[in-house]
C-alpha cells in the first residue's frame, strides 16, 4: 500500500534535468588537495548539526578489464566486508549505531561511498572509510555469497523489467567499441564467473588516494576537515603506477542501427532513439551546455516543443521527452522518446517524432521559452542551497569524470550564455542518423501474425 508512484516511473528514471551547480565563489564551497594527490571538496551549511561524508573513486564499470563486467559494482558490495580492524559488516553497523545512514553506488565512470551522520561523528567516518581504502580483507565465502546478491540485484533491476533489458540492448548497439555499451551491473554470464582475484585486481589498481575525491558537506569547518583528512587519508601513500584513464574510443559511426525488442511483459510500447553526443570536457563545456538546453527546449516539460506538437496538437503521444546527461568522461548520448496513443503503430509514432524533429530544425528556438528555462536554472541555484548534499554530489560526479572545480563553478554561467543559435547548431550536429540507434519496445509477434 505504499502507493506513491509516478505515472511514468520507469520512463522518468532516466529523466534528469542537469541542474546548475552553485557558483563556488558564493559562500560555502572550499577545495584543496592533499599531498598524496587526493582532492577534497567541502560544502558548508550550518543550519543543522549533520554531515555527509563521501569518497568518490575515479573508477567505474567502463574501467573494468574485458571479460569481467560488473566487477566495479561487485567490489563496491565487497567493501562492506572486513578490514584489518573492522569485522565483516562492522562499518555499516557502526554507522547505524550512531544514528547514521550509509550506502554506496557505482556508475560507468565512478564508484562512491557515503555516510550521513551527526557532525561530531565525522572523524569516526573518516577513520573507517580510509581504512577500507587499502585494507579490505574479504573471504572466498564473502565472494560466493555476495555474488548471489548481485545476481539477485540484476534480476530485480534488469531481468524482471523489459524496459531495462531494452535499454541494455540500445546501449550495446550505440557503442561499437566503448565500454559504455556494457551495463554497469554487468552481463549475467560474466557476473556469474566473477571471483576474488577479479575484485582484488580492480581494488589494487584503483583504490588509492590519488584516484579519489573526498567530498564533505554540512555543518563542518573546512580547516577541521583538512586536519582530519590529512590525518586519515593523508597517511595513505599514492599509487605511483595508477594507470592513465584511457578507454577504447568509438570509431566513426557510419551506419544507422535499428533494434526491435520483444517481450510478452511489455504493457506499453514505445520508440526510443539515442544519438551519440559530446560530453562536458574540462575547459570546454559549451557544446554540452547547448545540448543540455536543447533537451529542455525540445522535450523537457509541458511547454517543450515535442510535448506541444505530439501531445497537444497532433495528439499522437501519451508522453514524449528528450534527455541528455553531459557529466560523463567520454561520449554520451542524446535521447528522444515517444509513447504513442492507443491504436497508433510504432512506425507511425516514429514518423511523427521524426517529422517534429525536422520541423524543429526549421522553426528554431522559442526565445520566450528559453528565457523561462534560464530563469528556472537561476532559481535552481537558490533552491539547491537548501540541499548541500546535492551540491556535494554534483562536485563529486563532475570531478570524478575529470572536470575541474572551476568547470563546476562556471557551468551555470556557461548555461546562461547559450544562445538560440548555439542550440540549433547543437541540434544539427547531434541529429546524425548514422550515429544513432532507433529502438522499438514491443510485444512478441503472435502465431497468427507470423502465419500471415
Amino acid at each position: 500500500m505504499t502507493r506513491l508512484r509516478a505515472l511514468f516511473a520507469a520512463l522518468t528514471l532516466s529523466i534528469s534535468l542537469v541542474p546548475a551547480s552553485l557558483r563556488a565563489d558564493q559562500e560555502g564551497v572550499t577545495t584543496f588537495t592533499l599531498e598524496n594527490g587526493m582532492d577534497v571538496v567541502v560544502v558548508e551549511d550550518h543550519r543543522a548539526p549533520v554531515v555527509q561524508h563521501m569518497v568518490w573513486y575515479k573508477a567505474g564499470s567502463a574501467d573494468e578489464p574485458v571479460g569481467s563486467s560488473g566487477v566495479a559494482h561487485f567490489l563496491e558490495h565487497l567493501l562492506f566486508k572486513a578490514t584489518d580492524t573492522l569485522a565483516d559488516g562492522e562499518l555499516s553497523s557502526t554507522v547505524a549505531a550512531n544514528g547514521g545512514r550509509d550506502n554506496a553506488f557505482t556508475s560507468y565512470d565512478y564508484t562512491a561511498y557515503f555516510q550521513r551522520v551527526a557532525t561530531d561523528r565525522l572523524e569516526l567516518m573518516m577513520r573507517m572509510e580510509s581504512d577500507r581504502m587499502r585494507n579490505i580483507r574479504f573471504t572466498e565465502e564473502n565472494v560466493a555469497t555476495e555474488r548471489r546478491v548481485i545476481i539477485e540485484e540484476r534480476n530485480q533491476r534488469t531481468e524482471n523489467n523489459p524496459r531495462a533489458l531494452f535499454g541494455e540492448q540500445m546501449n550495446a548497439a550505440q557503442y561499437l567499441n566503448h565500454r559504455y555499451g556494457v551495463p554497469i551491473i554487468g552481463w549475467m554470464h560474466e557476473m556469474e564467473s566473477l571471483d576474488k582475484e577479479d575484485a582484488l585486481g580492480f581494488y589494487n589498481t584503483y583504490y588509492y588516494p590519488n584516484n579519489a575525491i573526498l567530498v564533505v558537506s554540512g555543518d563542518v569547518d573546512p580547516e577541521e576537515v583538512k586536519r582530519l583528512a590529512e590525518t586519515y587519508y593523508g597517511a595513505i601513500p599514492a599509487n605511483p603506477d595508477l594507470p592513465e584513464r584511457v578507454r577504447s574510443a568509438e570509431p566513426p559511426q557510419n551506419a544507422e542501427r535499428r533494434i526491435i525488442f520483444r517481450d510478452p511483459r511489455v504493457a506499453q510500447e514505445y520508440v526510443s532513439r539515442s544519438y551519440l553526443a559530446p560530453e562536458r570536457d574540462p575547459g570546454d563545456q559549451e557544446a554540452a551546455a547547448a545540448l543540455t538546453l536543447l533537451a529542455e527546449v525540445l522535450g523537457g516539460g509541458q511547454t517543450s516543443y515535442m510535448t506541444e506538437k505530439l501531445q497537444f496538437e497532433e495528439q499522437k503521444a501519451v508522453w514524449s521527452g528528450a534527455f541528455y546527461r553531459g557529466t560523463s568522461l567520454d561520449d554520451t548520448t542524446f535521447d528522444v522518446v515517444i509513447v504513442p496513443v492507443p491504436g497508433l503503430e510504432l512506425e507511425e509514432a516514429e514518423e511523427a517524432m521524426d517529422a517534429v524533429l525536422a520541423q524543429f530544425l526549421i522553426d528554431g528556438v522559442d526565445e520566450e521559452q528559453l528565457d523561462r528555462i534560464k530563469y528556472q536554472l537561476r532559481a535552481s541555484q537558490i533552491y539547491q542551497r537548501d540541499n548541500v548534499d546535492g551540491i556535494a554530489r554534483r562536485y563529486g560526479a563532475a570531478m570524478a569524470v575529470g572536470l575541474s572545480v572551476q568547470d563546476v563553478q562556471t557551468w551555470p554561467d556557461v548555461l546562461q550564455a547559450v544562445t538560440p543559435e548555439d542550440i540549433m547548431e547543437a541540434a544539427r550536429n547531434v541529429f546524425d542518423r548514422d550515429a544513432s540507434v532507433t529502438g522499438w519496445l514491443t510485444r512478441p509477434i503472435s502465431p497468427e501474425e507470423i502465419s500471415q
Partner: protein
Amino acid sequence: MTRLFLILAIAFAAALPARADVEIEEVVSPGGITAWLVREASIPFMAIELRFRGGASLDAPDKRGAINLMSGLLEEGAGDLDARGFARAQESLAASFGYDVSDDALSVSGTFLSENRDEAVELLRKSIIEPSFAPEALERVREQVLTGLRSDAKDPDEIARRTFDAMAFGDHPYATDYAGTIESVTALSRDDMLTAHQAVFARDRLYVGVAGDITPEELGPLLDALLGELPETGAPMPDPAPIMIQGGTTVVEFETPQSVAIFGQRGIAQDDPDYFAAAVLNQVLGAGGFESRLMDEVRKKRGLTYGVYSYLVPQDYAATLQGQVASANESIAEAVSVIRDEWARAADDGITPEELDAAKTYITGAYPLRFDGNGPIARIMVGMQMLGLPIDYIATRNDKVDAVTLEDVSRVADELLEPENLHFVVVGQPVGLESSVAN
C-alpha cells in the same frame, strides 16, 4: 564484534544530538486557517505543504480512480489559463507545484521564490480552487492514467501489491488501487471530476505546514488568499477497514525470472501507546537496512536477495505490518521459509539487549537527520498535525523512544507478531511454493 559494537553504541549515545533544533510557531490566519511555521530566512524561498485528509478513500464506490484522475487535472488548466498557459505561468515563476494522492490524503506541495511569492500563491490557488477540468485535458490525462494501469497489470510488484490488498481489506477502499481500474477510469466523466473535487477540498480536513523565508505576519494573509475560498466540509470520512489477513501463501503465476513477494499481517496504530516499542521491534526485525535480522539472514548469510524489508503501515483506517522480498524463482521458497522462521523467533524470544540499544540509538540518532530542508520540514509538520501530536513533540519524541524497555519489546513482540497469520503473496514462477490458506 558484538562487544565492540556495544561499546561504540554506548560511547556515542551520550554524544548524540538530543533533538533536531527546530522551532515551530503556530499561525492562525485572520480567516481562521491554522498553519505550523518554521522560519528559515537564510535562503529566499519557502515550501508549503497542504494535506487534505481522506484522499483517494473518499472515492464513491462505483467511481474508483476519480480522485486520482481529478488530482492529475489540477495543473492542466485553471481559471483563465489552459493547460499550456498554466505550465508557462508556472515556469515563468520558477515555482514547483506537486499534487499527490494516497489512500489517506491528497497532498499539495508548493515551492516558490520570495521574489515572486504572491504570483506563485495566486497560481497555486487557481489550481486548487478553480481547476477547469476541460474535456480535452480530461481525455489526455485519462489516457496517461490508463497507460499506467496497463503497465501495472504486467508489473510483478504491482500485481503482488494488488493481490495482497484485495485479500487483506474486504470491501474497503484500501482493498483496491486508488488509481481505479481500466473500466472505472474509462467511465469517469467531467461531472465525476467536479464531485471528486468537492469531496476532497474542504477546510475541515486541511492541515498546513510552511518552512522558509516568511514571517507569521506575512503567512496569515497568504493562507487566506490561498485557501480562504475552500468550503467548510466535503465528503464523509470512510469507515475503518476490516483486516482479513490469514496465514498461508498466495501464488500468482507470472512469467518472469525473479519472484517478488509481499507479506503481511495486522499491525499497530500510530497512536497506540506501544507504537514506539513496535517501531523498535520492527527496526530489529526488518527495517534496519543492512543491520536487520531479515537482511542478515536472507541477504548477508545466504545471498538469496538484494533486499528484504519489513515496515509498519499505520494507515488511518487500518494498521498492518508488511514486508517485501524478491528472489530468483528457484530460491524464493527458501527466502520465504527463512522469513517465517525469523518472524517466529522474534515472536517467541523478542530481541536482545544489544539489539534494543542499537535500534534505539539508530532511531533517535536518525530523527534529526530528517529535518534536512524546507520541503521535508513542512511535510513533517503536516504529518505531526494529522496525528494530533503537540507542537513541541519534536523535543520529546526521542525521550519516548529511549523509554522503551526490553520488557516492552518482548511483550509487544508476543502480542503483535503472529507467525501463524503471516500471509505471503508471491508473483512469479516460484519453485516449491503453492497457494495455501494456512501454514
